[in-house]
């Protein structure tokens, strides 16, 4: 398919060959789940390229085929070392791409580079355009610019800049020289500004693009700037509480790419603004270096001692963050509800500082709290959706509201969200699901899902005769809690580990699974091991029913479990609780030949799923994008 795509197998751990990285091309490899859906939306915008000029191109669009313009390359070559994509040199928005194909990479990279959840600590989140050096600067690499942290507040500027680049790019070739010259100038300006803006991170070059403001408002700019979300607001709050144009609402709708942690300089920058001091794990699996991994247990004592010193942090948020960090709170619904309740406290105690507007300041504050939470534990998709909802509601507050009215409105909005989208949704799901349980059924479930537990308990209350098989797996062993609760209610259960799932599957009639999220192509994103159970069930022709509230649906598309995941504590794998004699891996963490991998999530393809039970009824997996489309705008975000 893609000739430039290097195989994923890591032959030599020292050399990174993952993803789009082509040796010598110095194009950063970013395989992320974010890009696909963005990319898919790109083609239509290309059509707008010529007609609307400045406003037509999204900065992350794949630029049309460029003609190599050699003179431009040397400019970049000096600044960016080949083969690495360190962010230290912030390449100007236009990332040169030697060919259309590489422009894809660039575009992809750009998206990946966005300072995602961790944006707060990463001012730039910016995706640096390392590849610039080897590629002529034909295309616009707005991508990198886009991801600039808002610290610069010049999102608009960046976007504008991108716009310009794009626009000019579409112009005839002979104008390229002029553009290149302009770029060189801008680059110099940017470098100067970057030096001046130490904390701003990478964005400086973008902001310096004076061209900015004019084109800031383009609709296409909205897309790349969509990263705004937490990152933007976080940076904004930390830097300047910058003004966000109303187009932000539009940008909010687009999901943001996550930060890639393999970039050293960005990681450095993120660390500087981190509240939670974490040391990175030493021995990391190459394939997953784009995900954050820290030494477990290093943060908690430090944070606890700081409890009374963190002024900007609200104690409720701090508490929730600690609970995430220690693992006391787990499960999509529980985490989401705890976070929303903490935000309710925040809003209750909030008072607008003088000379600031409630909408912007509160949004910025929420953004900063979200970054803190991300540092404690990366956001789940349900939490991400809830945060989008909250920011949407804040942004939609009528300007005529007084502070107390606004706070009361937000308070009730959050209550309504929790009630309608989680609590009532669960009731509807249970009502639908129990119709699929017949007497004599053998139901299998994996791990511990709150929705599935409710279904089983309710079916038992209705008097249906069935028995349950609970499949469990290390290291979390969540199934034990579920088992205890089910047996306590009198349901006859069987308990087994993952290795016996194919042994027991022949006697199972239905499989009920929970989900952390369902993606737009019907892929179920859930705790690791779910895919295995679903596949075995499919092989035995046992129907698989996934129970997921609609607010957890996401428009992203993910094809595998690698590009977006979460890494847990690797020590949990090497130790077996309660059996100290199994200590063969003690001290092996320092070995160069051994890397421990503890994944938290995996992706189940839609072919293995028979039906998804949501609060909108029982739908086939192919209908998830329909629900996201129809209700995402209006209902999911109310």
């Amino acid at each position: 398919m893609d000739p430039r795509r290097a195989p994923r197998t890591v032959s030599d751990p020292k050399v990174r060959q993952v993803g789009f990285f082509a040796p010598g091309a110095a194009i950063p490899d970013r395989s992320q789940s974010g890009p696909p859906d963005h990319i898919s939306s790109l083609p239509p915008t290309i059509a707008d390229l010529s007609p609307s000029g400045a406003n037509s191109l999204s900065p992350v669009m794949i630029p049309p085929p460029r003609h190599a313009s050699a003179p431009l390359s040397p400019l970049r070559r000096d600044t960016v070392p080949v083969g690495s994509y360190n962010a230290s040199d912030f390449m100007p928005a236009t990332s040169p791409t030697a060919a259309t194909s590489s422009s894809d990479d660039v575009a992809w990279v750009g998206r990946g580079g966005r300072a995602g959840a961790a944006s707060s600590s990463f001012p730039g989140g910016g995706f640096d355009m390392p590849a610039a050096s080897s590629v002529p600067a034909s295309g616009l690499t707005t991508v990198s610019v886009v991801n600039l942290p808002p610290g610069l507040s010049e999102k608009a500027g960046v976007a504008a800049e991108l716009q310009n680049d794009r626009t000019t790019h579409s112009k005839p070739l002979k104008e390229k020289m002029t553009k290149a010259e302009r770029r060189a100038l801008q680059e110099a300006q940017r470098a100067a500004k970057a030096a001046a803006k130490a904390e701003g991170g990478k964005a400086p070059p973008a902001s310096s693009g004076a061209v900015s403001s004019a084109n800031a408002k383009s609709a296409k700019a909205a897309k790349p700037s969509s990263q705004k979300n937490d990152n933007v607001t976080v940076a904004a709050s930390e830097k300047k509480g910058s003004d966000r144009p109303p187009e932000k609402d539009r940008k909010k709708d687009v999901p943001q790419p996550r930060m890639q942690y393999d970039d050293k300089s960005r990681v450095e920058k993120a660390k500087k603004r981190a509240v939670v001091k974490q040391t990175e794990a030493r021995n990391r699996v190459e394939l997953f270096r784009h995900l954050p991994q820290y030494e477990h247990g290093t943060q908690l004592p430090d944070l606890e001692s700081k409890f009374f010193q963190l002024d900007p942090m609200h104690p409720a948020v701090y508490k929730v963050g600690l609970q995430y960090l220690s693992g006391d709170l787990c499960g999509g619904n529980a985490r989401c509800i705890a976070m929303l309740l903490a935000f309710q406290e925040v809003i209750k105690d909030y008072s607008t500082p003088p000379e600031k507007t409630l909408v912007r300041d509160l949004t910025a504050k929420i953004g900063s709290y979200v970054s803190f939470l991300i540092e404690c534990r990366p956001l789940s998709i349900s939490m991400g959706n809830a945060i989008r909802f909250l920011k949407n509601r804040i942004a939609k507050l009528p300007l005529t509201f007084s502070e107390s009215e606004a706070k009361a409105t937000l308070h009730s909005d959050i209550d309504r969200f929790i009630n309608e989208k989680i609590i009532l949704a669960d009731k509807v799901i249970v009502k639908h699901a129990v119709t699929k349980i017949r007497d004599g059924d053998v139901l299998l479930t994996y791990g511990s899902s709150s929705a599935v537990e409710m279904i089983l308990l309710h079916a038992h209350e209705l008097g249906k005769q069935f028995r349950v098989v609970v499949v469990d797996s290390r290291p979390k062993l969540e199934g034990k809690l579920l088992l205890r609760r089910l047996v306590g209610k009198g349901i006859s259960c069987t308990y087994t580990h993952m290795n016996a799932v194919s042994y027991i599957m022949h006697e199972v009639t239905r499989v009920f699974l929970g989900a952390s999220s369902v993606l737009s192509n019907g892929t179920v994103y859930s705790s690791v091991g779910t895919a295995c159970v679903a596949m075995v069930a499919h092989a035995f022709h046992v129907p698989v029913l996934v129970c997921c509230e609609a607010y957890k649906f996401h428009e992203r598309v993910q094809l595998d479990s690698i590009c977006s995941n979460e890494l847990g504590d690797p020590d949990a794998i090497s130790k077996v609780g309660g059996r100290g004699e199994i200590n063969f891996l003690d001290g092996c963490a320092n070995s160069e030949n051994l890397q421990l991998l503890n994944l938290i999530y995996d992706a189940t393809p839609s072919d293995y799923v028979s039906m998804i039970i949501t609060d909108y009824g029982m739908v086939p997996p192919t209908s998830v994008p329909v629900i996201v489309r129809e209700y995402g705008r209006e209902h999911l975000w109310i």
Partner: protein
Amino acid sequence: MADTLQNPNPNNISAYYQTRAAHHGVVTSDWLAQAQAAVGRHPDDVLPPEPEVKVAGKPFSVIHEFNNWRNQPDLAEAVAAIRALAAVIRNSEATTMMELEIELKKASDSLKSWDTTSISLTAGCDLFMRYVTRTSALEYEDFNSAKSRLIERAEKFGEISYKARRIIAMLSQDFIFDGCTILVHGFSRVVLEVLKTAAQNKKLFRVFCTEGRPDRTGLRLSNELAKLDVPVKLLIDSAVAYSMDEVDMVFVGADGVVESGGIINMMGTYQIALVAHSMDKPVYVAAESYKFARLYPLDQKDMAPALRPIDFGVPIPSKVEVETSARDYTPPQYLTLLFTDLGVLTPSVVSDELIQLYL
């Protein structure tokens, strides 16, 4: 409700399939008249001889109206129900929207309870209710104008449903090419319409008809096709795999289209779809859009049972059990396309349409 109708066959035999057999059996004309009269009389056995007074106190019975419509063999049951419900609105004396909706709901429930095994009836009634009552144009201040708007929509829905067959026939013409061989199962009036139109358009094709036991629908269908001068070959049900090599496409109707995109149809459809799928032959389903139901069977037993007594011709000892289910469920992965009045759709679009309509 005073005129609540009991299923004429109380021991769980599907009246739906009984009726179809009566309509489509190989019969003489006077037998047919007798059968029709018998069918028409069934509800009357339970009802008082004269039209029952409805709860609202009007001399109008939705069941009576329904049966008037239903006695034409050509008219689909669901369309008859839709027409009857439209008549309910027309004759309603309610003065508020809520009252009218309650009346409609009661009428719809009584129609549905007439035969609980008929999916198209249930689906048709439900869709009608949704289509008619969800309109935001009902925000008229004047009840009468809202009511007339309701009547308009109801009539329109009835018209669409009535014309659905013609639309489907027109849409499917592109798929029948000269020299093709079509395998047909069950006597679907929609499929017959499709083939009739193709014959009228002077297309050259031949049809394989399965016998369709126990209803012997294949005999009736081959009769009809022979009248159209279409070359027909009758197969016994077991000869489907044997002849599948020569077949270019499979055409079936549907009793109901479920949310997953699968269909519920006469017993034997699933078998034929499996054979066709394994031999890479396309399976086309011709179904009107009012048959889209909010059901989601996970397997064959996950549906309400619809039983039909089978006459083997010889007495069966009582110790021997007979599988009397009259229908089966074909999952969507074995279907290629659905021809509906909404267009030519893939099975995954069914849920799309239902979500848009219901939510």
